[in-house]
């Protein structure tokens, strides 16, 4: 199992500061969920981890600075599902998921039998076998999202980053996808960092939530600690009812405000 530490990570686009000195420790095997309003910096933080954008500060994986390693090694450690993945419409799902094996294939080599077997098993585990030969362009939004998750799973990295993995899934597939992530986490000891907008789902799957606002880490803790009506009112500007189930899960129910 693998830990992930953020040490004063800042991301800047030109003059705009998207993430400001973000520090956090994600324990091995933990599921941390980033929440926060649009533009809070959740995606920017995830993009910094995978090396798509430059940042200042330090990201440490298992005690070693992640960005001292080469890109291939990094991709073996961290798999990433972006908020809106690029899915070439003329690529089929099998080819797409096979790309997840890239970090293990030598520069000019081709995939081994192990790689293809691994990809086949991912298709089976995610219940996607019927889609293997379909072109990505002809899949529905939710089917595409599941294929994108499949590619990250095929990457076999101990750290999994998911940027709004369930945004276009129906309620059944939302649950299925998150249950799958949870199962992978328990079986393979994955460390998961996700960004999610559905606070109820976030609270019921993640071990810990971190609320971001305008690039700052505002508050972190369990669902009960973070999902409080006053906190959400302050940072989202919403009026919600927070319902506590007897089993400890927290449901956030939006209410219409009484303003006219």
């Amino acid at each position, binding site marked *: 199992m693998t830990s992930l530490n953020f040490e004063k990570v800042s991301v800047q686009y030109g003059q705009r500061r998207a993430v400001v000195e973000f520090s956090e420790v994600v324990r091995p095997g933990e599921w941390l969920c980033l929440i926060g309003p649009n533009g809070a910096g959740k995606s920017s933080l995830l993009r910094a981890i*995978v*090396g798509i954008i430059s940042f200042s500060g330090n990201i440490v994986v298992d005690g070693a600075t992640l960005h001292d390693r080469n*890109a291939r090694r990094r991709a073996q450690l961290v*798999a990433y599902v972006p908020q809106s993945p*690029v899915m070439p419409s*003329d690529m089929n799902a099998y080819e797409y998921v096979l790309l997840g094996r890239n*970090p293990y294939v030598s520069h000019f080599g*081709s995939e081994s039998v192990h790689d293809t077997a691994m990809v086949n098993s991912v298709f089976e585990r995610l219940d996607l076998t019927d889609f*293997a030969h379909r072109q990505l362009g002809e899949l529905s939004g939710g089917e595409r999202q599941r294929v994108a998750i499949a590619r990250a799973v095929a*990457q076999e990295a101990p750290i999994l980053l998911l940027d709004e993995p369930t945004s276009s899934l129906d309620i059944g597939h939302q649950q299925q996808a998150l249950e799958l992530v949870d199962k992978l986490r328990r079986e393979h000891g994955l460390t998961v960092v996700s960004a999610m907008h559905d606070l109820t789902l976030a609270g019921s799957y993640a071990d810990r939530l971190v609320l971001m606002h305008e690039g700052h880490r505002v508050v972190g803790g369990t669902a009960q600690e973070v999902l409080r009506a006053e906190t959400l009112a302050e940072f989202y500007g919403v009026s919600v009812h927070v319902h506590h189930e007897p089993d400890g899960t927290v449901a956030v129910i939006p209410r219409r405000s009484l303003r006219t």
Partner: protein
Amino acid sequence: MNSSQVRVSSPWWIPTAVAMLVLALLGGAMIGPAGPTWWRVPLELLNRLPLLTVHSGVSESEWNIIWLVRMPRVVLAGLVGCTLSIAGASYQGVFRNPLVDPYLLGVAAGAGLGATFVFTINRAGSSTWLIDPLPLAAFGCGLAAVLVTYVVGTAFGGERSSTTLVLAGVAVTSLVTAMQAFLLQRHTDVMREVYSWILGRLSTATWTDVRLVLPYVALSTTVLLFHRRLLDVLRVGDDEATALGAHVNRIRLVVVLFATLGTAAVVAVSGLIGFVGIIVPHAVRLLVGASYRVVLPLSFLLGGAFLITADIPGRILSNPAETPIGVVTAFLGAPFFLLILRTRQASR
């Protein structure tokens, strides 16, 4: 589903394409003015193979027509077609834009400018140098042109805009052509040589020309074929390719370098032949799908077969002046290009 059911492509395309290339080569050797009756040619070719004796009834002078007149031209047309097609497919891969080809990116015009420089400065002296500066200048200027096109095209349109890249290519091509025209105005004495270089020497090809381009073609093809899996990785965009552990910029630079090297070398012998780099890769995609693992090798093989075939009308139809091969490919290619443009617009 077992693993044998799921594969990236079917395996019999490559042998089929090899067979088509061999057929085109044979056909090219069999057809043409003068020379022996067509069916004697394959027999004589067999006869010339070591350890084989076939009586073909081809005289020595007829054999010279086959071997010294037809074959160099056919082989050269094949090499040019192979290279333009694989280079076109590779450019389309690294720029993630199905509409680019060596000509639209300004590579050919740049190469022409480079050659013009050499001619205007001192061709007579330089042709005997240890390393002929002509292909090098063509390569250097071709590369500069494609880099300018890329920088300009992506600076204004963003990475996802195919149209801006094509427009930038058009602009760079016009600029480079204007510079060339300006140079030629001031050196009218070399005008003839430059234009005959630009129009190409396919119709007067010799084995020397084949030997001149072969090393460049072999090198560029080898390097490009080694990148075919990585070009598939780039299809998901720079960001995700990076997240998958690919060195995107390094891959793009190497592929552009070697695609340009091959293009500049063949432009030096064939002159301007447009659209091959678009027609062939797209036809291949229609047949076998868009994975570069198949698109690259198949474009290479079928590109050779295509250009040899496209050269045949020019060799038999219009005597005494021949139809330049560029006219034939443009005739086929322009409607094809518009068709792709239309289907892409429709799929938006």
